[in-house]
Structures are given as structure tokens and as C-alpha cells.
């Protein structure tokens, strides 16, 4: 094996390692604030249950989006239901909050914390209408 080959393998390893560190730093940079005090706090099943219990018709429209998805922009602009809840998914909280602030969206906003998997959201944009009954039927 030549020195050249060893060097390029070392470089590959270094790039992957540096990448991992940067990504962890970015993930760590997301504000870990208590629910209710940040623009888009994490939302899980329990929190959605509470929101549904407080909702007037016991039903909610969840709009899932990501900051990196160009189609999400047009989709979010079309929302005319002020009670629809925005859920940022496949993205970190800081980026989701930045996107919502830049678009000046008045809807309540959350960051996905397991809901996407529960409601089988695999692509974005996606909408899910949930009721207390339908959510109770979804297996944990």
C-alpha cells in the first residue's frame, strides 16, 4: 500500500470524524427549553392528547413540514385554518423555529418528538387529522 493510499484513507476517516463532531454540535445547539417557553417546543403523544382534550371539537389538523423541503413553503402558505398545528419533522428545533419566524406564521408550532412515527409520516409536507378517538386507537 502506498503512502498516497494511506493518506487518503486517513483523510476519509478524519472527514467522517469531523463531520460527526460538527453534526453533534449542531444538534446540541438546539434550544432545550421547557415546553411552552420556546416557539416550537417538542410534541409527543401525551402532549397531543392534552391539546386534543382542550380543542373545541376534540379534533386537530397537524401539518408536518421540514425546513429543507421546498414544497413545504407553498404548502404552509396555503394554510387558511388558524387552528392548524405546525409540526416540524426530520429537522432540528432551532431550524424549525427559524423557518416559522421567517415566514411569520401565526399557527401554533411544535417540533416532532415521536408523533411522526406514530402517525406514519414518511414524507413532507403531510397533513394528519387526529381526534381523541383516532389517537387512542393508534398503537403505542
Amino acid at each position, binding site marked *: *500500500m*502506498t503512502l*498516497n*493510499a494511506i*493518506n*487518503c*484513507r486517513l*483523510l*476519509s476517516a478524519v*472527514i*467522517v470524524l469531523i*463531520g*460527526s463532531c*460538527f*453534526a453533534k454540535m*449542531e444538534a446540541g445547539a438546539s434550544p432545550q427549553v421547557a415546553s411552552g417557553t420556546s416557539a416550537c417546543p417538542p410534541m409527543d403523544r401525551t402532549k397531543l392528547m392534552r391539546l386534543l382534550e382542550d380543542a373545541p371539537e376534540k379534533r386537530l389538523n397537524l401539518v*408536518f413540514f*421540514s*425546513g*429543507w*423541503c*421546498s*414544497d*413545504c*413553503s407553498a404548502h404552509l402558505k396555503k394554510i387558511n385554518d388558524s387552528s392548524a398545528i405546525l409540526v416540524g*419533522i*426530520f*429537522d432540528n428545533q432551532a*431550524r424549525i423555529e*427559524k*423557518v416559522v419566524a*421567517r*415566514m411569520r406564521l401565526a399557527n401554533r408550532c411544535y417540533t416532532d418528538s415521536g408523533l411522526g412515527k406514530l402517525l*406514519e*409520516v*414518511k*414524507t*413532507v*409536507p*403531510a*397533513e394528519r387529522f387526529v381526534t381523541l378517538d383516532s389517537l387512542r386507537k393508534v398503537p403505542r
Partner: protein
Amino acid sequence: MRLNFSFLFCLSAIFVVQLALVSPSVSLACASCGSGSDDPLILWPNEQLKSYLGVSTSNRFETVDTQGRLGRESGPTSRDALTLALGKALRNDLFMTVTLPFQQNRLSGASLRSVGDPLLAVRWTWLLPDFTAPQQPQIQLMASHKFAHARSQQEVGRLDLLDAFGTGLPETKLGVDVFWGQSPIKGGFAVGALFPEERILGRNSVFAGNGLRSTATLGLSLGGYNKVLAGVVREYREERRDGGRRVAGSEVLAHSYFLTLDWTPANLQTLRFSFSDRGRILTNKNMIAASAFSVAWLSTWE
């Protein structure tokens, strides 16, 4: 262009099986997803496991000499390939892919099959795009290693080179892929440094020379979730070394262009048609010109 029966059968089988697996859903795949076309399989943050099944046929092989003149290639007249690739996300911003080609060379009615060179690639997304800032590109760092599994021209046993399926040299690529995909008109570029390993092939040690592969891509959203991409690839390699000695005038320069149509018939399923022509535009030197057409099905499983 010639696709034999077995490949057409494979393609039909893939189409039918994948179509049967498509699950109905109200949501649609993201149209901005795309890259500099440097690798066949790119995973997006919502994708955990993705497969690529493609069939391709290459023909119109011609040698390009040191002066850039085209001449008849003495090897196979066409090559068909079935390419399987699998991509797995290690995190939302990091994924790896494994690519394995199965190839078939043809010459005057005779044909030989072999497994080609496997490729292991890793991509880390340093910067994700943002639809509120479309001028901000996606930036990915890429590293890949091609294993020299297939026989090279220096190792073959036949004079007609029908049993040559690879370069015979393992190669590592390190690079960056930049893509602006948030607008209807998309574009980007990728640059990769190529580091082949020196190996004993036949009686001599052979070193192909370090290289640089650059790709420029321009794309257009065709409405809905379909898009067309076109691009130019420039590949340069330093002079080759045979037995430790530089071979004067052996540097390689190859230009090619490609056209790719991505059609998304169903959620998380993409059908890709590609055409590429290598060595017939701009200046070329010490390479083999070829045309290739491929059809591939990309499927997201998780």
C-alpha cells in the same frame, strides 16, 4: 442500443414488484430532493433505508488517443449492467451506500458475465437547504472507496478483452457536493479528488495517477414531483506510472454529458431515466468514449 431479454425481464419484474409495494398516502415526496448526480443514491433526512435497482447498456466504444483522435476499440462492443445499491441513514445528516454492479460484456455474439467493482460511499450533510433562504445551498462532504474486484485489461486471459470488467485498481474519492434545489430551476456542482492505489497487475506495478472529477448540474422542476437534470462531467488524471516510471503523455482527460429524468409515480418511489455520452464533447485524451442509457427504480423503505 441493445438490451437483451434477461435485462428487460429483470426490469419488468422490478417494476411490477415495486409497484405492488407502493403504499397509498396523502403526502408526496419532496420535489427539491436532488444532488449533483455524482452518486446514484442520495438519502434525504426523512429517509432511513433506500434501494436503487438499475439496468443499463453501454455501447459505441471508441478509443481516444493522446492527440484526441477517435479510433475503433478492440474490446467488447457493448456492456449491460444490473446495478444494486442500498443506502442506510446513520443519522439524519449522515448516510452510507453500498453499490454492486453485475456486468455482461458482448462481442460478436459471445458474452461473458462478472460482478463489477463494489463501491462503498459515505455522505455527510454539512449544510441543509432552507426554503426561507433559497440562495443557501445544500453542502455535502462525500467519501467513497471502490474495491478492485473485477478483472482489468492487464489481468485478462482473452485477447478480445471480453473478460475485462474493471480498472483493477482500488480507488478512494473525497469531495464536496453543492446543490441549490429550492427553486424550480436547480443547479449545483460536485468536485471529487481521486486517489487510486498502486497495484501489481500482470508483471508490473501500475499506478493510474491521482485525479480530479468535477460535475456541473442544471435542473428544472417539471411540475409536481418530477424533474429533469442535465450536466457536464470533467475528469482529469495525472500521468500513469508503470513499474515506478512515469509514462510521458499518459495523462487522461475525459469530458462527458448526461441527461436524467426523475419521475415520481408514487409516494417514496422514483423512476429514473438517464443518458450519458463520454468522450465526444470538448477535449479528450487517453480514454475510451462510450454512450450509456439506464433505467432505475429508487425506493424508500423506511
